[in-house]
């Protein structure tokens, strides 16, 4: 169980983004989080995945908290895939950055073999995002936070990516927090939906 306990955060010289925020995610569960743009959803995603430290509160992963050795058990999939891939690398190197990645994941996500020898600038955003998703499913991953991962793609690509995501999450018993401003998408994929604006405890 991934517990978000009593988390508060604000950036310097600005108001509180959220205060005393609490919720939990079970393994194998898909939780949708809905909220308006600019309300702090991405910041929350970075706090849960340990990119940013909260001002108050803890993120407790299966009863443990603190520093983990090796691959962090909660992985973030970023909104913009082109930013999280080294532009000088070939895509095969991006895949190899994760040790022990299951080859089946690559097939399920529809990644083609001929993409491996290309550079990130030679792929479309949707194709690149599939690599970033594959990378999040490391053997160590127990939870995934997907932050607006399909918001820039067309409906067909969105459907393909989410279809593969749901299959992978259920198959591997991974807890997924899907963040989006697109309520209809969340209704389709989630087991339950949290409204971010209701739990953030600020005006």
């Amino acid at each position, binding site marked *: 169980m991934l517990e978000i306990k009593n988390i508060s955060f604000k950036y310097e010289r600005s108001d509180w983004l959220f205060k005393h925020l609490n919720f939990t995610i079970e393994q194998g569960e898909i939780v949708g989080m809905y909220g308006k743009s600019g309300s702090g959803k991405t910041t929350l995603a970075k706090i849960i995945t340990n990119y940013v430290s909260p001002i108050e509160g803890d993120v407790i992963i299966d009863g443990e908290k603190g520093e983990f050795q090796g*691959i*962090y058990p909660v992985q*973030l999939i*970023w909104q913009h895939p082109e930013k999280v891939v*080294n532009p*000088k690398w070939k895509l095969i190197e991006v895949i190899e950055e994760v040790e022990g990645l299951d080859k089946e994941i690559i097939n399920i996500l529809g990644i083609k073999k001929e993409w491996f020898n290309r550079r990130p600038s030679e792929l479309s955003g949707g194709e690149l995002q599939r690599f970033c998703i594959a990378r999040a499913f490391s053997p160590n991953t127990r939870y995934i936070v997907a932050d607006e991962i399909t918001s820039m793609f067309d409906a067909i690509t969105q459907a393909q990516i989410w279809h593969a995501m749901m299959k992978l999450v259920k198959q591997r018993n991974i807890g997924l927090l899907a963040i989006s401003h697109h309520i209809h998408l969340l209704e389709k994929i989630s087991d339950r939906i949290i409204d971010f604006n209701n739990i953030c405890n600020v005006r």
Partner: protein
Amino acid sequence: MKSTFQMDSQNTIHRKRLLLKIIGLLFFFFIFVLSGFLIGEEQIEANLSEKNLSPSLVHLFGTDWLGRDMFMRTLKGLNLSFQVGLLASSISAVLALTLSLLASKSRLLDYIVTILIDLFLSIPHLVALILIAFVLGGGIKGIVVGIALTHWPTLTRVLRAEIMQIKSAEYVQLSKKLGKSRMWIVKHHFIPHLIPQLFVGFVLLFPHAILHESAITFLGFGLSPEQPAIGIILSESMKYLSTGMWWLVLFPGISLIAMVAIFDALGNNLRKFINRE
């Protein structure tokens, strides 16, 4: 569509031109420098029956007061300068890379490296160079160490800025969350990113190193007089300038400037070429 296509083809033409320039400059440069390896001792031997000849077809740069052919001596001298420059700027580049990577490790180290950069930049190169070469007793060792120790700061500053930029890149942060060690990130993310800058910086260091080597040898703190370095040739020839033997100074001087100019042009063209990628 058409306009982007035209822009593309213009771009490739531009790149081809740059590449041609680089190849041409390299060709010139190799003729200039590597010919020095082919010149043996006998070609710059003293020959008193042919002393003090002004430039002619047989002796392109004339001969000196001992009858040595100045053309051959100049090529030999440039070759020696090239070797000293190569060694010194390699050490400088390695020093710059090491220090800039060190600076990225912690805030304290960054502070120390920045202070060192400012310190070395605030002393004129030539003064520091003379001091270091003098302390080490002159000779090739003194010059190489002197140049290496005075020429790293500008390159270090460039590399440090590059690392600061890439350090905050999202793909490096993500690499950390995938459990990669600092060494792994340095090797796979930082160094490939720095190599073009390092290479261009190295090539641009070169003319500096050669000029300073000649300057310090000219002033008498550098290479010993029996070595046919350009600085030695120039300082010896100064004594004979008043007797009207102008060719002893003019041609070696021009050759030195030509070599430095070629190298500088090479570095600038390489930078343009790499930055377009």
